[in-house]
């Protein structure tokens, strides 16, 4: 308590100084007067008494200093002094101060913005209980090795794992999707949904805010469908109606009753079914809003060797590690494969939830953070050089301090304080910029990046910015500060300042700074140009289809009219809808052709099945994996996918629709060395086992995603019509005019269906590479900033050293040196650090390249264009930066230069 009181008193001692000082002087004066009086009384003369009093008292200033040291916190007082002094010094050189603060503000602002995204998407823990122990489970099959790393889960396998595992506390099975929510007086719109085993929120450690959680009795066949709403969904869909519990609404094919509302901020992440699937289906990622109970179907309860359809989230027991769980679950899967006599060997793929959700974007985000960190680093190198020059200029002052007894640490702190003051100002401005920067990034970042709505400038981010500012200050301030410690006072006080600045040591330091800057820039340039070239390869390759002049409308038939369970012969109803929409779309003005496909193009590999041939049985492990699509005859012509063998689907196939088109890759993988036309396949149409005849082969296309060519099988929609279909309209009219007409045409046929996506195919194409584009755009702007900073930096170093050697150049000219020789002198001085930096940069880029190879699309081992282009850019910049100081050196007037000193 007393210590606290004293601490507070000492803190105040820093400020209320004048009054205390006056009081102290008064007290000392009175003390001396009393002493003097006593001595006089002992018989001394007035002068003698005064001297004796002084002697007895000791040094007045010394006593005062002791008093000051005791009453306040010395280091703090010194720091405040240093800060005041730094601010005064900085005010004297507004140019330097402005450049420094601007550089730091932009650098720290940019890094902080990118970090906010990294923090929100990758680092921030989920709002669940002990989120570090949540894991995602997927299955593996030895037989699929090399084809698929992991597949979704089978229901029975999930039950086996959940019941027998000793490393898992609990596990929940779930499916995620989107459903159409009908709203009175309006067409339906799509909301994100989750159907899970009722223990999901118990497993996550989340309790409903209103109402109750899902119960086991909600997940039995025939139970009334009850749901939980997310807080955000409750607000947006039901305006936060407090009487919501017990109310019903229609979503998809059935009516659901609300039993509970989750607390705010509980956002359930999108978990990928398998690692290769992106979430562009259903019109982009949505936070799930409606959480229902998953009721396993008859088929789920029976099937052991197929129907890998679900996602499983589990919680590790306290103390159990990921490795232990992996080993145990793998063992359980192996045992199950044997005991159930499965034709395959099952295994497990387990990954922490946070990592799993962001696996697609984390490398790209870290790369951006590294890149923007590099830009800040280059800025800091520039500032280090400026600080070095200022330290040199302030050497006399430092020497005086040292001569008066300041120790090394005090000298370093005196110089470092200036850098810290600059960094504090830059950091504050940077945080202000980061608020805008985050908004800018969020506008650029593709919508399918998970957890984007959790990105914000919050406390951890501010803390990071503060740390970053301090770190930058030390980065650019420590070198100059340390130099001031090694200043020998006498030489500096005798010599002139430019001689002190132009020692061999300081020249080396400047060269090293320049080399470091060039190295950083080279790495950034090479990384950026590799990513840029990868992106351009992605866009400019032959895709095998034509997205121009085509507009896509995705339609969702999940309404009671098409309910499998309630409507008899639902296939006929779906077919009727599809035919009527097709006819309506064909009559729109300017329409050349209308295609149908069951999966929106460029949304990844979906409906993956095994190619099974009745005439040519092969073990399951060797069957190629194919993507099945249900299309109409005009699909291939609408997409401009050429037919290479056999014939296209034709209206004549309608009566006997057991035919198929396959892609060239399917022909190669499934019918090696054979003519596939006329061959049979089976088991591709749901609930039907007709053998299917291959009637034609079409060219390969990257219709599922620009990064890979999948094995495709196209079946006519007459054999089976999907609930989610996409109409592709090729028209001479612009998409803008076409889209409202398409929407009207579809809703004319059935106003109850939802249209989750309606957009030009070119936009869909562009959206499918949105994260690549985002990376390219942001990286390019970082690389450009790095180049500009490097230009400024190299120019600054050379201009400064030329100014220091002004006199020397004058003498050289006076002695007959040619101008070109002087220019060469300066350029040579620049050449060494630039070449050194380039060499180091190249080496570092090869290291970086190995790490980022997986992010690049079809990257060659060596990309001479990217590397050569980057080197060219840095050399061009170096020459531009060097030419001006070189010319300046050559144009020194010898008379003037010699007269200066």
């Amino acid at each position: 308590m007393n210590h606290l009181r004293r601490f507070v008193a000492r803190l105040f001692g820093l400020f209320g100084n004048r009054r205390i000082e006056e009081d102290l002087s008064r007290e000392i004066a009175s003390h001396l007067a009393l002493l003097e009086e006593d001595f006089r009384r002992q018989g001394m003369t007035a002068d003698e008494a005064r001297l004796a009093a002084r002697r007895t008292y000791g040094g007045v200033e010394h006593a005062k200093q002791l008093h000051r040291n005791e009453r306040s916190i010395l280091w703090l007082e010194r720091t405040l002094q240093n800060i005041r002094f730094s601010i005064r010094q900085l005010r004297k050189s507004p140019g330097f101060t402005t450049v420094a603060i601007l550089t730091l503000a932009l650098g720290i602002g940019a890094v902080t913005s990118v970090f906010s995204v990294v923090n929100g998407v990758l680092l921030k823990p989920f709002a669940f209980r002990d989120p570090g122990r949540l894991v995602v489970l997927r299955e593996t099959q030895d037989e699929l090795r090399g084809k698929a790393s992991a597949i979704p889960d089978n229901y029975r396998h999930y039950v086996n794992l959940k019941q027998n595992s000793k490393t898992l506390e609990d596990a929940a099975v779930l499916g995620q999707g989107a459903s159409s929510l009908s709203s009175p007086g309006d067409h339906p719109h799509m909301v994100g949904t989750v159907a899970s085993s009722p223990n999901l929120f118990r497993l996550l450690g989340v309790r409903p805010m209103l109402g109750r959680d899902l119960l086991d009795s909600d997940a039995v066949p025939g139970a009334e469908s009850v749901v939980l709403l997310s807080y955000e969904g409750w607000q947006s869909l039901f305006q936060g109606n407090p009487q919501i519990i017990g109310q019903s609404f229609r979503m998809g094919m059935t009516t659901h009753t609300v039993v509970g509302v989750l607390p705010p901020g509980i956002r359930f992440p999108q978990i990928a079914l398998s690692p290769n699937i992106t979430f562009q289906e259903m019109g982009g990622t949505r936070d799930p809003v409606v959480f229902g109970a998953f009721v396993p179907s008859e088929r789920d309860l029976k099937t052991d060797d197929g129907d890998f359809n679900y996602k499983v989230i589990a919680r590790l027991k306290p103390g159990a590690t990921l490795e232990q769980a992996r080993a145990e679950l793998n063992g359980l899967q192996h045992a199950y494969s044997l005991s159930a006599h499965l034709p395959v060997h099952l295994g497990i793929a387990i990954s922490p939830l946070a990592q799993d959700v962001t696996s697609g974007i984390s490398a790209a985000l870290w790369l951006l953070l590294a890149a923007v960190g590099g830009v800040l680093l280059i800025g800091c190198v520039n500032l280090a050089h400026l600080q070095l020059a200022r330290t040199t200029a302030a050497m006399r002052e430092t020497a005086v301090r040292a001569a008066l007894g300041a120790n090394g640490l005090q000298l370093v702190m005196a110089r470092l304080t200036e850098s810290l003051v600059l960094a504090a100002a830059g950091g504050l401005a940077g945080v202000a910029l980061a608020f805008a920067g985050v908004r800018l990034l969020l506008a650029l970042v593709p919508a399918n990046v998970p957890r984007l709505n959790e990105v914000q400038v919050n406390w951890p981010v501010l803390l990071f910015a503060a740390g970053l500012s301090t770190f930058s200050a030390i980065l650019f301030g420590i070198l100059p500060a340390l130099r001031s410690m090694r200043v020998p006072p006498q030489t500096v006080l005798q010599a002139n300042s430019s001689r002190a600045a132009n020692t061999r040591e300081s020249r080396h330091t400047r060269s090293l700074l320049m080399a470091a800057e060039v190295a950083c820039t080279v790495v950034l340039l090479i990384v950026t140009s590799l990513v840029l070239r990868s992106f351009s390869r992605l866009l400019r390759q032959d895709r095998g289809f034509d997205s121009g002049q085509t507009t896509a409308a995705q339609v969702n038939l999940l309404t009671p009219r098409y309910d499998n369970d309630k409507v008899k012969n639902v296939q006929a109803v779906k077919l009727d809808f599809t035919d009527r929409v097709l006819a309506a779309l064909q009559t729109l003005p300017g329409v050349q052709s209308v295609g149908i496909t069951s999966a929106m193009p460029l949304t990844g590999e979906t409906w993956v099945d095994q190619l099974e041939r009745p005439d040519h049985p092969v073990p399951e492990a060797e069957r190629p994996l194919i993507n099945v699509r249900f299309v109409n005859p005009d699909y291939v012509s609408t997409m401009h996918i050429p037919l290479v063998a056999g014939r296209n689907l034709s209206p004549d196939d309608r009566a006997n629709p057991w035919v198929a088109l396959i892609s060239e890759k399917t022909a190669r993988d499934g019918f090696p060395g054979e003519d596939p036309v006329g061959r049979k396949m089976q088991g591709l149409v749901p609930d039907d086992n007709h053998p299917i005849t291959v009637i034609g082969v079409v060219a390969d296309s990257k219709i599922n995603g620009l990064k890979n060519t999948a094995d495709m099988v196209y079946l006519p929609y007459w054999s089976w019509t999907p609930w989610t279909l996409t109409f592709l309209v090729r028209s001479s009219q612009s998409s803008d005019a076409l889209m409202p007409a398409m929407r009207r045409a579809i809703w004319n046929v059935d106003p109850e269906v939802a249209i989750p996506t309606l957009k030009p195919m070119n936009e869909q194409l562009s959206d499918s590479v949105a994260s690549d584009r985002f990376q390219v755009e942001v990286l390019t702007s970082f690389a450009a900033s790095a180049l500009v900073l490097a230009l400024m930096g190299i120019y600054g170093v050379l201009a400064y050293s030329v100014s220091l050697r002004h006199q020397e150049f004058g003498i050289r000219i006076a002695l007959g040196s040619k101008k070109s020789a002087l220019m060469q002198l300066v350029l040579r001085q620049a050449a060494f650090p630039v070449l050194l930096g380039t060499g180091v940069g190249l080496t570092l880029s090869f290291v970086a390249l190995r790490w980022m190879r997986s992010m690049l699309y079809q990257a060659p081992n060596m990309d001479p264009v990217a590397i050569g282009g980057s080197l060219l850019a840095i050399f061009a910049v170096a020459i531009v930066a060097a030419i001006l100081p070189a010319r300046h050196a050559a144009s020194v007037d010898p008379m003037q230069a010699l007269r200066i000193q």
Partner: protein
Amino acid sequence: MSSEEPIQLLQGTLDLIVLRTLATMGPRHAYQIATRLQQVSDRLLNVNQGTLYPALVRLEQYGWIKGTWSLTENNREAKFYAITKAGLRAMGEETLRWKRMAGLVERLLVEESQS
């Protein structure tokens, strides 16, 4: 070591001496405290009187003494320090601590001379 040589003050000794001085003699100004210090120490603690000031400011910041300006009997102004209630309490504790410490050192020395 000759017993006439001035001894170095142990950390905290000065504080305790000041507190005891004020407790037994009532409010005193810095000069009086310094004089008293020299008297009780039999001039062993022969230090400059100015070195007393840090102890005074420290004790005042702890809230153990309080200084007020007043006049001496010769009508000169001086800052008189008085011990506070907290100061009395602290002095009790400090005295006890010193006695224990002294006892400990004493015991150690006795044991040493016996062995």
